[in-house]
């Protein structure tokens, strides 16, 4: 049980911090550049999913890069 205490303590600290509201170091009015559409992680999800499906049908690796859709791409 003693191994669990640090984690519970950290959880309590985080919960307390949440109540007092964390001050962001990048203020909302400083985020105009980040809100630009060119800064979106994925501007075109349908296109990204298609390219991921092509790659996953031909490579051994998979995952951690978005949704690749179903099917086997066997042929």
């Amino acid at each position, binding site marked *: 049980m003693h191994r669990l205490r640090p984690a*519970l303590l950290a959880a309590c600290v985080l919960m307390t911090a949440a109540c007092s509201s964390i001050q962001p170091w990048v203020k909302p009015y400083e985020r105009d550049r980040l809100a*630009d559409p*060119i800064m979106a992680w994925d501007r075109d999800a*349908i296109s990204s999913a298609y390219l991921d499906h092509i790659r996953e049908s031909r490579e051994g690796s998979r995952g951690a890069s978005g949704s690749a859709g*179903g099917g*086997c791409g*066997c042929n």
Partner: protein
Amino acid sequence: MSSESARRILGRLAVLTALLLVRATCADVLPDDRADLFYSKYSGGGMDITGESVLVRKKFTENFAVEGSYFIDKVSGASIDVLSQASQIKDERKQKTLTVEYLHDKTSYTASFVNSDERDYRSSTTSVSLKQDMFGDLTTLSLAFANTTDVVGENNGTAFVPNVAWLGHAQSRSYDVDVSQIVTKNFIAGVNFNVITDQGDLANPYRSVRYLDPQNPKGYSLGSQVYPDTRTSTAVQIEGKYYLPYRAALTASYRYFHDTWSIVGNTYELDYTHPISNIWILEGRLRYYKQNHADFYSDLFAYADEYRFEARDQDLAAQDNYMIGAKVTYAFLPDGWKMFKRATATFDVSRITFHYLDFRDIKYFGVPQYLPGDEPLYQFNATVYQIYMSMFF
């Protein structure tokens, strides 16, 4: 599970629960309604695949949105494996997706169902995800789970007179944790961690192993692949996106992959996005991928049934590939038209060069100058075109 592991997991859950309980200071909004029309064409390795898709996303209230898409792939031609042992193929894949999203304060909940149907392969995926903005909206945490059930078949007939034998089932479960962090007013970073477990019939029935056979005039014979019936993979991707001083964006990412079949893959990507006067967005990207082979893969086994598990699927071979891509997006209807607020049209082209390091091009079989195992290594180029129009309303 040992009590030690249970405690460790409980500890992590406690921290995670606390993270999710962080209160929000103001509410988020769902993205705009949109409709997309999509066309794609893939040519490479003896195959031509055209794809058409339509996607519609609609908010019914400020907190609730539904998204549906329909995708159809038409395949003609045949890969190197099919050319070396069977007739050409003609097939199509239909994929339907339905997603619902609910937003409550800083948390969005998503449930999705995907169904993919081919003549010889059926796949259904159900997924749920949760996304939470926290720490003054500097951090976004996403958790996702997906369960996929596949029915695996093999067409023993021809392209025009199919005769499909259903071979078995496969099940896959995917677990995702994704954190996106605003680092400075010009820089955001992300980490994505993913684990996938599979079990069932995991071998591709259209691939065969080959083994030395002095009785065969070609010097080798083909046999069935035998795969382990389980696989677990882990992938971690880190990425960063930087806003350049003259309004452009540079993105870099790296992904490390490892699985219980001893495949290790490394992926590097670089993307540059450059808008011109709010009308055009130009994008260029480079990608490099490299992997070693699975521990039960061989291009040529010494004799039939040499090992318990045997594969000669090019996906499991040692390989690397390079991709170079370009995309141009044109924004029109800036003042809107009828129900539409704005619209974009996009053309995207990618060129991929695949090199296999221990997978040989045996479509030369029977040619006297190549002894088994001396054939040239297989490589091919593929070109991918995408054209799509997005309308926002």
